[in-house]
């Protein structure tokens, strides 16, 4: 009997089984064991980030050229304004001696505070929407600057998010406006414990599972409670702007406006673990 002209299949079933079992093992290992993160860091730094940089260069070159033309006139106006401001500032400089005394007095009060905020780092935002389907940011500092997964990221006005992935020179931040992000928080007026969730369809937040008869008013300030040890305590999250009490249902819908302008923030502050313990 002659062999068939076409082989029925070129593939090996046992090879398929082998690859499938390897992938399942790697999923399980990745979920249970955080040390697999080193593989991600290596491939991110040596393969993905260079490609992202190459891809970014052509488009940024053209946009920067166009911007340059536009901004020269703006710069001239700015120089005039700055020259004026400079004179005013020189006059104000004379008041500095009296202010110095005041500063030293305030410093003694804040000496306890400075010890806590010693370990703060400031990072710049390099990309937006880096994780598909998720509200996210990329910053320009990474594990080289001792950034770790889970650290709180805040702006000058309030909470921004938390670090979810760290490479050598960059790291990714999940924003509080993402639907998967839950922040343990507290209502400063009543002391009620809440869980704040992102909405993803707009830039507002909402409270999940708040009973209809709870005492909450429009304008209440919500701050982080520090429970579960993820976020630093008493950072501003936002203010309540709308309360919809759903008749006939158990839970009310409460809309919160974030304190930080999350879509416009350019620089963020990352705090390290030492601050969280206080």
């Amino acid at each position, binding site marked *: 009997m002659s062999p068939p002209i076409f082989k029925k299949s070129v*593939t090996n079933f046992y090879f398929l089984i082998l690859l499938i079992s390897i*992938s399942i093992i790697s999923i399980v290992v990745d979920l249970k064991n955080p040390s697999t993160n080193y593989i991600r860091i290596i491939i991110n730094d040596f393969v993905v980030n260079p490609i992202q940089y190459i891809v970014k260069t052509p488009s940024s070159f053209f946009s920067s050229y166009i911007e340059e033309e536009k901004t020269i006139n703006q710069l001239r106006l700015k120089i005039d304004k700055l020259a004026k401001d400079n004179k005013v500032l020189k006059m104000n400089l004379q008041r500095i001696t009296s202010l110095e005394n005041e500063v030293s007095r305030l410093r003694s009060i804040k000496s306890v505070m400075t010890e806590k905020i010693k370990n703060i780092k400031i990072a710049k935002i390099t990309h937006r929407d880096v994780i598909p389907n998720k509200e996210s940011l990329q910053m320009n500092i990474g594990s080289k600057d001792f950034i770790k997964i889970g650290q709180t990221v805040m702006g000058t006005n309030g909470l921004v998010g938390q670090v979810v992935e760290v490479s050598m020179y960059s790291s990714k931040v999940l924003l509080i406006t993402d639907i998967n992000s839950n922040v343990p928080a507290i209502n400063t007026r009543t002391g009620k414990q809440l869980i704040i969730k992102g909405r993803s369809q707009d830039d507002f937040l909402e409270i999940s599972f708040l009973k209809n008869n709870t005492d909450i008013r429009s304008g209440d300030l919500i701050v982080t409670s520090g429970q579960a040890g993820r976020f630093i305590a008493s950072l501003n999250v936002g203010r309540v702007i709308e309360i919809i009490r759903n008749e006939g249902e158990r839970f009310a819908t409460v809309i919160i406006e974030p304190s930080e302008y999350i879509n416009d923030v350019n620089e963020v502050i990352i705090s390290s673990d030492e601050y969280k313990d206080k």
Partner: protein
Amino acid sequence: MLIFHLTFFVGLILSLIMLPLGYIAPEWLLLVNIYWAIALPSNKKLFIAFLSGFFVDIVLVQPLGITSLSYVLLIYIILYLYNSLRYMTITQQMVVLFVLLIIKQHFFIWTCYVFSFDANYSALIISSLITGALWPITYFSLRFIRRKFQVNAD
């Protein structure tokens, strides 16, 4: 040989360019994998599909191996059906790929639920439709490359 590997690299670059599109970003790397599996079927394609899935997982910050699992299964089906796929016209191939991609996405969603992850169902289905619609572009450009550079073996 070099050209063969370069096409995968180009596929990776294309996926990274379209990353800001979010959930409608097409899976270029998978399309390149499918083309080579039909053009030059061999056992090695399964391994390459596994590696590409690994890269996609790293880029999209998913648990390592969750995409490679679905890629390997899809490429296995294609390697099994490559003789029938070669006889079809490009439109017929596109329709078959739609079906296979949607099966693959359902498998992916199922894996996500087994490991208790959130999967955006409608987004994944839309992305598979877009990926299928891009099949003719991939097919003709890669066929041109294969004939021009005489790629006969991986």
